[in-house]
């Protein structure tokens, strides 16, 4: 790969980073882990960025030799997956080649990458940003989305039909636009986005009364959104409403109902107390540059998840995935700090956090007698905007406490009560709805300068799916270079006793400046990780994993 260094030449600089992850695979029938004919698989990438005054150019080389289990094998191969040239002047910025961009919250357009979930829908085309006058920010984009290493016109179905995406975004900051409002406490930002995709027609059949018909497929589909953000300390409001015209696709079973999505976020924050209330409603809002694509492929937009994103292993055991076809929900988070040197706060104060989130389906009524809900080739259903669907997809109540007891000792406690519709969110009928209680204790003891040990104890109790789990983890850190961890997750009450397995894992790592090396060995349980509606299945594995990351 590349060796890393930084140099200056004629005012230009080169920066970069790289990561390589290598894993060995051993068959382990107890946990359902498979070996691989290659024995070893490897994902790697390197970014190089050259900057000279107003000019920037960069490339990213990616190599999958072959793709690690759990990532899409269509990535197998190598090459320059990302290359661009960009020029910025006082009031405009132009990019040729690949770029990432987001309009507002992403409801109608978001192009991004996330290596952990194996996602990359980089645009390949042209982007222009223009700031004609104070407070007015315009962005225009056109291009096709990245789809693994397939050539730009190859689509999800492997035939030449990947769509063209074009769009524009306007942001208007009232405070920036009018001098008299520059220093006002109240800040107002308005936004409008417009995205259109073009994809050639494709034959889609439907059989009605023994006659086969082909559907009329719209080749151009438009989505647009409006935004209003207001900040007035200590309050902040962020809102966006998006609408999409008829867009029959594989994901919505080729129904023609226009889609809409609403995202609201209200927050209040003062010293020692914070509150965030988020609301979301999504109705038929999958938007992809190839109408036949599903799962994580070729999304034009991104529907943010309002449920809490958890970091601990068991609290993240059942992550929610945005339901593009329909969902509505609310999330409330309260943060409170018990003051220092009070009876409840103790010497160092205590941080409390309470979170509630719930996601439901939307109401869906038949459009006419004899036509079932979601019938292909029709409007699919009627839905009352304010009616809550009867199905609970997800509910999470989490209480968290962080406390420092001594200058060398601190701990955290977390309790979570979870309802997770496994059938809906994972597509496995057998499991049904999972009800789980999760308890977590996290202790950190700094026993000498630069030496700390962290113990994590977790328990997941459930009558469904894989039953009860317990976990113990110990991490020893010798700052700033070394760390060693040992973890065991034990599925001690799996309903099938033969699968009551220990998932042990040992890891150590070394960090020097911007370079980090990690080697681990052990079992990884099967699971899912999600960002919004984009998810990756983590397969069960048994073997060594080596990771090297560096930047320069």
């Amino acid at each position, binding site marked *: 790969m590349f060796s890393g260094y930084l140099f200056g030449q004629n005012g230009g600089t080169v920066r970069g980073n790289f990561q390589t992850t290598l894993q060995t695979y051993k068959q382990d029938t107890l946990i359902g882990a498979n070996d691989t004919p290659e024995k070893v698989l490897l994902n790697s990438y390197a970014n190089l960025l050259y900057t000279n005054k107003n000019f920037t150019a960069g490339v990213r080389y990616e190599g999958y030799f072959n793709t690690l289990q759990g990532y899409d094998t269509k990535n197998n191969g190598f090459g320059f997956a990302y290359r661009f040239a960009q020029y910025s002047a006082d009031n405009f910025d132009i990019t040729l080649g690949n770029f990432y961009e987001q309009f507002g919250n992403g409801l109608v357009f978001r192009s991004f990458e996330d290596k952990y979930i194996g996602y990359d829908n980089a645009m390949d085309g042209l982007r222009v940003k223009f700031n*004609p006058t104070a407070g007015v920010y315009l962005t225009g984009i056109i291009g096709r989305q990245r789809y693994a290493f397939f050539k730009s016109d190859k689509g999800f179905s492997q035939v030449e039909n990947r769509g063209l995406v074009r769009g*524009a975004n306007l942001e208007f900051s009232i405070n920036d636009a009018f001098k008299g409002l520059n220093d006002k406490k109240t800040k107002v930002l308005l936004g409008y986005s417009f995205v259109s995709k073009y994809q050639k027609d*494709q034959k889609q059949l439907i059989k009605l009364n023994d006659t086969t018909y*082909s559907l009329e497929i719209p080749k151009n589909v438009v989505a647009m959104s409006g935004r209003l953000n207001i900040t007035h300390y200590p309050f902040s409001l962020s809102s966006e409403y998006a609408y999409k015209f*008829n867009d029959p696709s594989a994901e919505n079973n080729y129904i023609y109902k226009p889609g809409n999505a609403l995202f609201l976020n209200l927050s209040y924050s003062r010293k020692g107390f914070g509150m965030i209330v988020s609301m979301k409603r999504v109705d038929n809002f999958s938007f992809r540059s190839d109408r036949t694509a599903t799962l994580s492929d070729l999304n034009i937009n991104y529907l943010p998840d309002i449920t809490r994103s958890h970091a601990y292993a068991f609290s993240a055991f059942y992550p929610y995935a945005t339901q593009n076809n329909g969902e509505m929900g609310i999330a409330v988070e309260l943060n409170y700090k018990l003051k220092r040197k009070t009876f409840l706060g103790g010497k160092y104060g205590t941080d409390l956090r309470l979170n509630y989130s719930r996601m439901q389906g939307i109401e869906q009524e038949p459009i006419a007698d004899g036509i079932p809900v979601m019938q292909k080739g029709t409007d699919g259903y009627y839905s009352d905007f304010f009616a809550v669907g009867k199905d609970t997809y997800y509910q999470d109540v989490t209480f968290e406490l962080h406390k420092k007891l001594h200058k060398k000792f601190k701990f955290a406690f977390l309790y979570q009560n979870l309802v997770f519709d496994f059938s809906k969110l994972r597509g496995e009928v057998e499991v049904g709805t999972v009800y789980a209680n999760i308890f977590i204790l996290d202790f950190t003891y700094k026993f000498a300068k630069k030496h700390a040990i962290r113990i994590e104890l977790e328990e997941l109790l459930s009558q469904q799916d894989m039953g009860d789990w317990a976990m113990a983890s110990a991490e020893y850190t010798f700052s700033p270079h070394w760390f060693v961890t040992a973890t065991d997750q034990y599925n001690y009450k799996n309903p099938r006793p033969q699968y009551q397995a220990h998932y042990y894992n040992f890891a150590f790592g070394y960090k020097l400046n911007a370079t980090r090396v990690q080697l681990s060995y052990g079992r990884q349980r099967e699971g899912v990780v999600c960002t919004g509606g984009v998810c990756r299945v983590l397969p069960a594995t048994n073997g060594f994993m080596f990771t090297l990351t560096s930047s320069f």
Partner: protein
Amino acid sequence: MKRIFLLFILATFLYSCDVVSPTNNYYIADTIVNNPDDGGDEETVVKKVLLLDFTGTLCLNCPAAHEIVHQLQDVYPNKIVPVAIYVPGLSVPVGGDTVDLRTPDGTAICTELDPPTLPKGLIDKYGKNNWEETTSWADVISNAVNEVPQIGIKINNSFDDATKKLDINIDLVSQIKTDKALKLVVFITEDHIITRQAISEPPGYIQKYEQMHVFRDAVTDVWGDPIFADGVEVNKTDKVTLSCTFEGHWNADNANVVAFIVDEESSVLNAQEKTVK
């Protein structure tokens, strides 16, 4: 400022949006006239399309794919050769079901090709990374059926009920000249097998579901046996003789022989199907 806003709004509408309207609740473009059924005429060389449907009894969305196969067979009678390959991980008999559609050869195919999330299909392809979503099947097949046939395949079967032995004679006639090495792949499939099947709407099971085109066994090597050993020329013929013995639970009355020709690039040049009896 006002001008900028107006220009911006105008620019956005320069991109057209195709808003379509329904007739009697359905957004119909055309009536598809079903293609003529030539009864699977084997005397003339005709193009038939191989559709490998990777499926599973525990796969919720697979019955919808089976329905698409059925629809396509209606539209293109005797022009499609379907084979349903049951992926082992999603075809474990559960809930008291005793019928197991997993087979050693089917498992070998799935291990090598590694199909992603089901259902998935291979259309006139027999190799990795050529997956087609079910939603693309109609589109891809509408093009494939019009391709010029490259190799003629004629199947003659002779089944002995007493010994359960099947003799297969296959006559091949080339319509092309090529330097590529070709292989003949022959499968046994069976229709009307009743099993338990998972479905998505409503999530649950159908206890007695009729499985069609079920892959039973490969009579040749799973990846095919070489043909046209002396090269492929126009009008050149080849003859292949094969035999296999049916396992006890196979029903010869519902069984078929499927044969197809595959080249070095995993492209299927033509396919043919004939009932065992």
